[in-house]
């Protein structure tokens, strides 16, 4: 369990982390969502005792990280943004070093073997870390965090630099780990946090903008009132027709292609125009080739959460 109380970190005048509080319970996966420079890594570095806080408390399983660092650190597995790997060691040497460093008591050979199987690095076990690809390095970094089976895992952007299939693998792994660990992970990708976490904290400019469970936040942030459609036919006819639908506030061609153009359609919140749009386009003989809800970018999310109103989207104009 992790408790953070009114934590702040100032660098001179700059407030990297500004008075944040949250709790992550046992067996919970907590996601930190925020753009670059939001204070995610700083918070994680404070939680793991790498840097100190200016004020406030961070308790890991009830132990204050500043007052009793060695005891608190025993319970933490940390994967920093850049995996802290010694390039001049083999994976085997490195994991054995970490095993010794953490004064791990579990059976050495079988424990390290289990971890390697879990993060799928068995085939590179005897290779030099400097010769590994970024994806493998990331996994060795994750393996390092898992050594000693600490109850708390803190993972700073664990999927950065991985290819799509690896990303899915790592997400599945984190979900699995989340069953019997407390996990905090950070990301700047909304869908990733949504896919993995039980609870999401949105952080921007050092402050918590939202602290919510995944479903609550998803509802708030759903972009269903903004649609992107690819429709074949004359743009003039289509825009005029779409604008005629009740509830539509904007219809704009965003991408011009021969034959089919892409449109951005915005409507009032709570209004679903998809069926009507389908019928109308069928009537006009303009086939819809693609129709999807627009995804909100991080900026839109912050604006939405901080302003509590419709995000200011690019290209928005009054009719």
């Amino acid at each position, binding site marked *: 369990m992790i408790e953070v109380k009114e934590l702040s970190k100032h660098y001179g005048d700059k407030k990297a982390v500004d008075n944040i509080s949250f709790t992550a319970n046992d067996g919970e996966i907590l996601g930190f969502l925020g753009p670059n420079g939001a204070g995610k890594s700083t918070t994680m570095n404070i939680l793991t005792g790498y840097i100190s806080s200016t004020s406030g408390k961070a308790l890991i399983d009830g132990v204050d990280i500043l007052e009793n660092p*060695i005891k608190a*650190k025993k319970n933490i597995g940390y994967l920093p943004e850049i995996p802290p790997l010694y390039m001049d060691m083999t994976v085997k040497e490195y994991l054995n070093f970490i095993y010794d460093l953490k004064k791990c008591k579990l059976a050495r050979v079988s424990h390290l073997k289990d971890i390697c199987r879990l993060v799928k690095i068995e085939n590179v076990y005897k290779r030099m870390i400097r010769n590994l690809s970024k994806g493998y390095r990331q996994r060795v970094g994750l393996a390092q965090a898992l050594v000693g089976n600490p109850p708390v895992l803190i993972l700073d952007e664990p999927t950065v630099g991985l290819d799509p299939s690896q990303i899915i693998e790592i997400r599945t792994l984190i979900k699995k780990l989340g069953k019997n660990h407390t996990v905090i992970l950070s990301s700047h990708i909304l869908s990733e946090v949504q896919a993995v976490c039980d609870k999401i904290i949105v952080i921007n400019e050092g402050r918590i903008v939202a602290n919510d469970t995944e479903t609550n936040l998803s509802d708030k942030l759903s972009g269903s009132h903004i649609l992107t459609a690819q429709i074949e036919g004359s743009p003039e006819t289509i825009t005029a027709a779409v604008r005629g639908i009740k509830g539509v506030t904007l219809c704009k061609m965003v991408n011009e292609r021969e034959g089919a153009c892409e449109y951005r359609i915005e409507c009032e919140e709570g209004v679903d125009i998809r069926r009507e749009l389908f019928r109308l386009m069928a009537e006009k003989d303009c086939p819809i080739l693609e129709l999807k809800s627009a995804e909100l970018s991080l900026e839109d999310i912050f604006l939405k959460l901080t302003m509590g109103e419709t995000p200011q989207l690019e290209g928005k104009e009054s009719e």
Partner: protein
Amino acid sequence: MGAVFRREVLSYFTSSIGYIFLAAFYAFSAIIFTSTSLANGSTQMDALFSQLMLILVVLIPILTMRTMSEDKKSKTDQCLLTAPVSVGGIVAGKFFAAWLVYTCAVSITLVYAVIIQSFEAPDWLVILGNFTGLELLGAAFIGVGIFCSSLTENQVVSAVISFIAMLALHMFSIIGDLIPIDAIAELFAKLSFYERYTGFTYGLFDLSNALFFISAAVIFLFLSARVLEKRRWA
């Protein structure tokens, strides 16, 4: 501490640094040994021991330059500082690893003594005293080197600062002599590594000199630990 120590020793010999240091030390000490003891047909080795100091001033920065700076640069300090070990343990591990490699280097002087033994018995007690002095001097220099390395992320900068610092410590008594205030000149002479070490090469084992080097090593290692700790607070 044990884990850090083993990793550091391993890394000296997986990179070329350990080999370069040993090879350079063996080569230069052999040249001095040949040109002093062997060429003169003398069983005395004090000339070798006193000249080794300058070689160490040049070579020890090579040994210590990456100890702290490399960790900072490659962010591996994140793994050390978030592990359940004390900062003191990390610094001590690094120090003893460097000292072990250093001991491998200076032990060659005992081999030279054995070579002399094949001609005529040298004064073993004096040689052992000298060897102890060399070990203590090395410990203090390594302390200085680790401290310099903890100040920067750049290995080259670290090596240059340590080299300058060690040269200054070596020359303290000369610098002191230039200052026309007796008290200061005396203080500089007391702090001069050269003055302290020369005692050993005369075959004198003075406990105060031994304690001086031990304290110097401890102080600089303590300061290195503070620098590591400071970054947690800054």
